[in-house]
């Protein structure tokens, strides 16, 4: 619904939908202070109101090295204003794997997770007991993996894949004629 007036004092008087039980933060290129205000109002009105984020990605890469802000920025804005942590559905949380496993007969010991991002794809795969395969056609370079492998920090070891390929096309020779 359109907000009355130009200022936060007006927005804070707009009627709230009594049926709202959750605030869901996803990618929103029309994110604004006014929306952030409304989100905060719903979260404060009812402590039982859920705060859910689709994912925490900081940046969405574009061609040529540029990037636009990711959903994670918007989630952080809402979390900071509300002084609450969101439940994050996306990788590396295992919720999406659980969704897959509840609909398909997936045996983690015989399943490979293929991804380009260590802190989402590989971390989720490792956490769920999958074999993990990093492809180098995306955001991650091999020296990042080496740095995690060489680190003393156990949390960083969870970011290391079991295997890597330059591209998923490299898997073709392994598949029979």
């Amino acid at each position, binding site marked *: 619904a359109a907000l009355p007036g130009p200022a936060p004092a007006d927005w804070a008087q707009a009627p709230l939908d009594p049926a709202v039980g959750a605030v869901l933060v996803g990618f929103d290129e029309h994110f604004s202070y006014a929306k952030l205000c409304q989100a905060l109002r719903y979260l404060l009105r009812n402590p039982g109101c859920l705060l859910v984020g689709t994912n925490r990605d900081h940046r969405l890469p574009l061609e040529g090295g540029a990037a636009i802000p990711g959903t994670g920025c918007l989630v952080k*804005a809402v979390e900071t*204003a509300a002084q609450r942590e969101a439940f994050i559905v996306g990788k590396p949380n295992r919720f999406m794997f659980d969704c897959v496993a509840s609909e398909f007969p997936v045996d983690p010991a015989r399943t490979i997770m293929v991804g380009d991002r260590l802190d989402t794809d590989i971390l989720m795969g490792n956490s769920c007991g999958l074999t993990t395969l990093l492809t180098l056609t995306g955001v991650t370079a091999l020296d990042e993996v080496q740095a995690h492998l060489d680190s003393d920090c156990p949390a960083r070891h969870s970011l290391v894949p079991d295997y890597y390929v330059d591209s998923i096309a490299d898997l073709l020779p392994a598949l029979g004629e």
Partner: protein
Amino acid sequence: GGSMASCRRLSGAGLREVLGPAQGLLFDCDGVLWAGERAVPGAPELLERLRRSGKAALFVSNNSRRSVAELERRFSRLGFRGVRAEHVFSSALCSALFLRQRLLGGGGNGSGAGRVFVLGGEGLRGEVRDAGLRLAGEGEPAPGEPVRAVLVGYDDQFTFAKLAQACSYLRDPQCLLVATDPDPWHPLSDGQRTPGTGSLTAAVETASGRKALVVGKPNTYMFDCIVERFGVDPSRTLMVGDRLETDILFGKNCGLATILTLTGVSRLEEAQAYMASDSAAAKDLVPNYYVDSIADLIPGLDE
């Protein structure tokens, strides 16, 4: 001093013991002097009595919406006499002074200094201009005038597009990221909350992978500005505020004794909970003293 603050109610003889030796008081504004458009009852009289006692009153506010000229008019409109713009240190003013120092070296003309991309309203933008800096998006950009700083303030017109623009400037590692204050939210007069600069800064930090330099309380830069202009002695100055995480911690960081007033954000129970906590960081959020309202300070001053 090294002894732990113990959150004692200031009244009676204690009031005179604490206020007597003080040369001056630093006041936060929102929730201390006024709430919305209403002065805290007795607050204008307190300032008048301070003036008559020969004690200085200065003002230090994280609110980055208004210029100090607007704040001077606000003081007058709400019934406070004799407060001039030079007595008021807002995060908007101090952010502009900070940027002037970093971009212009504290003096000189603006050529070649670079521009500032401001996420904020006209009050903040005006302070940056008054400091001799040029804003991104205003006027013809001269050659060699890249954007050298992104300043995040309270911006009720914040959008995804502005967030993306800020990030594109911040790809240059020479471009500073500065925030006026860290406040996550501010109270509205009906008890609701509106998001603060802190929530917008979190979005910019997350997108850019950078940490912002935060000018406002509890960081001490605004106290440096006060000392530079008025030469205040911290051991003879009291900090009065309503928010433990900003005002009281600011006082501790600057070596000031602190008084919490209960007409604003923080509740007494929160101060007591910090006092009971085992964490060293929590102890720094405990005020030396508290009052229900700053009007309670009046009996501590000479007639």
